[in-house]
């Protein structure tokens, strides 16, 4: 697969129904076994169910069932003001609250045309990339845990995640429910001591990436369990709206940080890693490589961060009423494309507030990847999608 975007074979004529999951027939007149995996299955990362039909060990059908964590986040947001939804966005993807804050702030800024001060943009990039590192670290840890390596890699990942969460706590006051970004900036400024502490943590991250790489990438068991499993073809990945590391593991060069260049991402020098086998191992490897690229961005941002305010002091954030209109803003969250769609009717509350959840839409292709595989591999394929149920069910 070439890395240039123009010669991918997307958009060419395909036979009818090419983007539906294939129908797999059981061998002979074997009786199918229907298993409900979940909602309380240790591998589902929360309350999520897969209704699987099995012929022996082979998956014949798979239907995901959602909604156990549904609280109608969108309806709640339409009943309160714009700022009132900011803390609730933390609860969507609770592993990466800061990128959720950022996406919502970006959508509102698109709607109102507010400018963000330079220092706030740098802080957003630093926090967003720290979030990406800790998300990818724990995603790899969970994936290996589901492979049966109980403990060690996950605890290594969580050791690193703790350091990053400590930084979040020092800056925002909370480890996970941060409520940090505001429309047109950030809530509080980072002290020089915090920046020094961050530089120290970032200096230790390449060593952590090397450690994970040495521990896992060449492991015979990891390779045997993941290589050639859960293949997702690039044309289906694009058609099914798959985004994030999953899309890039299928060889499509599409990173919203590069494509939209939102914030100040145009200023940083980083590469977009692409997979060429489209399997679970590629998804693991892409996450590892993206961690290394994030560390590069962090080093550049921590070197260049300017002084100045983090918020326009005249900006009105509380009880403001945007002019009627609509806006769709999106960012590259660690899980994929996180978008917010807002319609304003001139009132203090959004008329329509919509979250485009990457976790839910990446699950569209779960059945396609799992058909014909062994049931034990479904757990791995599901783990390689990297979802959070708070965002799937909203």
């Amino acid at each position: 697969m070439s890395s240039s975007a123009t010669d991918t074979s997307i958009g060419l004529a395909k036979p009818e129904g090419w983007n539906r999951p294939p129908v797999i027939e059981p061998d002979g007149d074997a009786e199918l076994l229907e298993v409900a995996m979940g909602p309380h299955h240790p591998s589902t990362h929360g309350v999520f169910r897969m209704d699987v039909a099995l012929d022996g060990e082979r998956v014949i059908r798979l239907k995901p069932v959602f909604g156990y964590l549904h609280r109608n986040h969108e309806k709640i947001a339409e009943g309160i003001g714009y700022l009132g939804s900011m803390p609730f966005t933390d609860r969507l993807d609770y592993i990466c609250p800061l990128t959720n804050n950022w996406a919502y702030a970006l959508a509102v800024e698109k709607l109102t045309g507010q400018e963000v001060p330079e220092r706030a943009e740098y802080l957003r990039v630093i926090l967003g990339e720290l979030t990406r590192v800790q998300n990818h670290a724990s995603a790899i840890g969970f994936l290996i845990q589901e492979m049966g390596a109980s403990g060690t890699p996950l605890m290594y990942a969580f050791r690193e995640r703790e350091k990053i969460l400590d930084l979040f706590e020092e800056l925002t006051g909370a480890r996970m429910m941060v409520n940090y970004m505001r429309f047109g900036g950030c809530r509080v400024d980072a002290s020089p001591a915090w920046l020094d502490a961050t530089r120290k943590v970032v200096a230790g991250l390449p060593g952590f990436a090397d450690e994970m790489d040495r521990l896992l990438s060449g492991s015979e068991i990891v390779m045997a369990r993941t290589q050639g499993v859960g293949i997702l073809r690039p044309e289906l990945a694009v058609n099914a709206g798959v985004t994030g590391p999953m899309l890039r593991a299928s060889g499509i060069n599409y990173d919203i940080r590069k494509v939209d260049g939102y914030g100040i991402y145009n200023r940083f020098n980083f590469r977009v890693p692409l997979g060429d086998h489209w399997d679970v191992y590629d998804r693991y490897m892409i996450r590892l490589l993206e961690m290394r690229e994030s560390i590069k961005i962090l080093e550049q941002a921590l070197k260049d961060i300017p002084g100045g305010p983090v918020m326009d002091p005249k900006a009105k954030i509380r009880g403001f009423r945007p002019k009627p209109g609509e806006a769709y803003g999106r960012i590259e969250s660690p899980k994929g494309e996180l978008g917010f769609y807002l319609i304003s009717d001139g009132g203090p509350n959004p008329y329509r507030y919509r979250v485009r959840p990457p976790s839910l839409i990446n699950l569209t292709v779960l059945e396609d990847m799992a058909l014909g595989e062994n049931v034990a591999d479904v757990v791995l394929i599901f783990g390689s999608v990297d979802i959070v149920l708070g965002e799937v069910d909203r």
Partner: protein
Amino acid sequence: MKTVEEIKTAIETAVPGAGVQIVPNPSVSGQHSLRLAPGHAVEVAKFLRDELSFDFLSNVTGVDWPDKEITEKVKVTRTVTKTVDGVETTGEETVEETRKQVQPGCLEAVYHLYSVALKQGPLTLRMRTVNRTDQVELPSLTPIWRSAEFQEREIFDLFGVVFTGHPDLRRLLMWDGFKDHPMRRDYVEPDDFEYEPTAHDDVLKRALAHRNRDQGPGIRDQLAKAGQ
């Protein structure tokens, strides 16, 4: 990136009679949208995917526009005959009248398209149902873009739009027996939760007794008293 006007012209040459309208967006985001006629939507979508390379459907969502009562004041001039001092005079008089008009509501599906091949976007498409009660059908774009599969199911679930041609149209987030559509503006939360006595009631009684005690005897005595 082509402007919406150029895309509209391209669609109209490729699909005659498509009936595409531009919906301007007054906000600073400048994301204008195209409203498709449901009858030709699948053809237009296919054209957008195959010819204009909008291969990536990012976001699909519903919007509810309930019936809206518009009150407008109209100046009406009418001829009035008056009798002043026994003499009839005919004169014209301008009166302000308040007229009420009900604008029928509808349900809307909004699609945000991007192009992965050309790295462009977004293009916003919209489709409207005829009304909000019985004619709520729209053509499904899932056969064109698979990413609409779960999102159209969500709109069916939360707004009640029926997508014809969807391969697997079921509720997504609410359970199957659920009747209403919670994201509609006029949805009223049910008030019929049954009160079920739980094991906590016993504990609660004892806890209340504990709270109301005078500071004299200890909790053991109080519990013994409550047990009598």
